[in-house]
């Protein structure tokens, strides 16, 4: 344990020393990876590479550099613009529908959660990497219930992106047909949204996991954060099993259990790095002022004392 704590202290020290460089570098790497994934995804629909410009590595690097220094909500908007731009050049009707859907999602859900918009991107990315089960437990501990909406938006956008192929296939002949094609696309989109059981189940279970994990982590019990991670994992496993059985969906349970175990491991490491408390040294105080009587429980954080190097002079 001491070795672990020592390693943690060294890691934190290293982060503090290199923070000015590490934070932008992590942001840049994340943005570049997102653009790369988006590009790979859109390339499969844009077979003629009509919007080849955005596929160029130099453009992706420049965009990632820009994203490093702008607010997260602008990152979301850049992704929306790239998606709409590339889809429009393949099919104008599909581009219009994609633009309208993304605009509605932004106006209805993301305007109130501008600071948390990055969570939608993280959720979408995690889903594409089969790491989605990490998201609800981590956001419950580090962000709180306010993350439910951005996470749900990420899930909706990810699953709706699967409908893009069907949308692009619904091409019309000329401008006269356009309104009819648009209406057909709208109906297709709505049917996809309402019939996608996996998407609805994922949103529901993730929301429950976020709430459960958050509330357990706030309880006044020893090791509350670690217990919350365990409880969140149990809720996730049983939640998915129950809802999957009731709604007769096709979610792979072994995959989900494996993903949840990974989520628990990642969350425990993250929580350990965040802070570790020494429950053996709990202090309880009671005092009062003019307005209140206070019951305070203080738990000290574990800190590894710095080892001072001693120099011996041998004569």
């Amino acid at each position, binding site marked *: 344990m001491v070795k672990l704590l020592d390693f943690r202290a060294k890691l934190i020290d290293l982060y503090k020393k290199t923070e000015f460089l590490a934070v932008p570098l992590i942001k840049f790497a994340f943005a570049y990876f997102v653009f790369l994934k988006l590009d790979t995804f859109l390339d499969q629909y844009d077979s003629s590479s009509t919007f080849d410009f955005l596929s160029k590595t130099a453009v992706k690097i420049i965009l990632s550099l820009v994203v490093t220094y702008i607010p997260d909500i602008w990152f979301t908007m850049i992704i929306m613009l790239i998606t709409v731009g590339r889809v429009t050049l393949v099919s104008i009707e599909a581009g219009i529908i994609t633009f309208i859907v993304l605009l509605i999602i932004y106006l209805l859900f993301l*305007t109130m959660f501008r600071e948390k918009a990055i969570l939608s991107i993280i959720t979408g990315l995690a889903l594409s990497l089969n790491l989605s089960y990490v998201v609800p437990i981590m956001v419950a501990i580090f962000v709180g219930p306010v993350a439910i909406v951005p996470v749900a938006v990420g899930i909706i956008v990810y699953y709706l992106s699967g409908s893009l192929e069907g949308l692009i296939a619904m091409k019309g002949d000329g401008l006269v047909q356009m309104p009819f094609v648009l*209406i057909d696309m709208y109906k297709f989109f709505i049917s996809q949204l309402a019939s996608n059981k996996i998407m609805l189940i994922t949103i529901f279970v993730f929301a429950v996991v976020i709430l459960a994990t958050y509330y357990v982590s706030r309880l006044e019990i020893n090791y509350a954060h670690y217990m919350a991670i365990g409880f969140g994992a149990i809720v996730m496993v049983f939640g998915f099993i129950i809802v999957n059985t009731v709604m007769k969906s096709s979610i792979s349970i072994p995959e989900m259990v494996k993903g949840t175990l990974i989520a628990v491991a990642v969350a425990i490491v993250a929580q350990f790095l965040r802070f570790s408390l020494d429950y053996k040294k709990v202090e309880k105080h009671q005092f009062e002022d003019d307005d209140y009587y206070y019951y305070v429980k203080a738990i000290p954080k574990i800190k590894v004392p710095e080892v001072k190097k001693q120099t011996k002079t041998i004569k």
Partner: protein
Amino acid sequence: MVNPNKVRLMTKVSSYEKKNKKKLENLDFFKHDYIGFNVFLTLVGVAFSLLLFFLADLGTKFVADMQNFVKLDFVEIGTNYAMIAIAVAIVYGILSTLIYRKKYHDSVEVGDKLERMIKKLSKF
């Protein structure tokens, strides 16, 4: 002579101010102005989104039966749209009020903490 404690506190204040710049900017407004303005913006977005939905719904009705489109009961359709719009506006109004009230409250806490730090600094 340089007071190391003062320098340390000044650095802390500066870093805290920079980290919470957005929240401190919210304090430029009175509480009700801040909440009211943001709720208004949210409702404008909601109204625009609903307008798009209603247009798409009308378009679907038009394509489904073009010849009898003019015979549709537009008063009933309009009433239904109005009911949906009012219900959604009420839900969003309440939710956004709660969210922006919490955001303003958080900003006030940040402002108070910064004030306490500055007071401490002024004692040097």
